[in-house]
């Protein structure tokens, strides 16, 4: 499945892009993260959450949506 991964704030500085499309054949968020850690090793040290369907999801969640966002701590307001 093709996934669009969106990056924000400090995370987008590490990936050096706001979004990218990747080909993904596994099922879990945690498996996606393993692939991203391989591509961007310094992501591992960073604090972020994963959103799917515009909600924060746990790493054990299944990927059901082609848009996944990596969200560092919010700092609005």
């Amino acid at each position, binding site marked *: 499945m093709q996934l669009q991964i*969106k990056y*924000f*704030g*400090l995370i987008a500085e590490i990936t050096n892009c706001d979004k990218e499309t990747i080909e993904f054949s596994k099922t879990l968020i945690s498996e996606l993260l393993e692939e991203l850690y391989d591509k961007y090793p310094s992501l591992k040290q960073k604090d972020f959450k994963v*959103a799917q369907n*515009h*909600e924060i999801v746990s790493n054990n969640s299944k990927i059901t949506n082609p848009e996944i*966002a990596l*969200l*560092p*701590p*919010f*700092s*609005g*307001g």
Partner: protein
Amino acid sequence: MTKERKPKNVFKEGAISSEFIAESIAKHQSKTSIGAHNIFLGQVRADAIDGKTVSAIEYTAYEDMANPKFHEIRETTFSKFNLTCMHIYHSLGTVKSGEICLFVFVSSPRRKEVFKALEYVVEEIKAKVPVYGKEIFEDSTHQWKVNS
């Protein structure tokens, strides 16, 4: 509350002006069941960090998630408190130090409700809405803002 409220676009490009706030207040003069308004304004601080001073914050957001989250916060707040109306505006893009980046406005017949409601809304925004502030220093370096 059975009245249905549609999701709005909460974001405004750049700083929120005092004239915009005044217009928003003036529009409520026809709502004569209101007895109390409470307004929160977030203003960009010129914080000094390691000898450098913040000159502006550049805001970005995951808008597709942020607008539904703002809507969810609105709906929950209306269900928890007896409010006549509520407005939320958040800046995107560059807001200079001294300028306003967040405007939350709640109104009710009674004052006790607005105090509780406003603090609830502001804390929910800080906790649940994916907005990012990049603090720009005078020398053009930056750091990512962290909420406390």
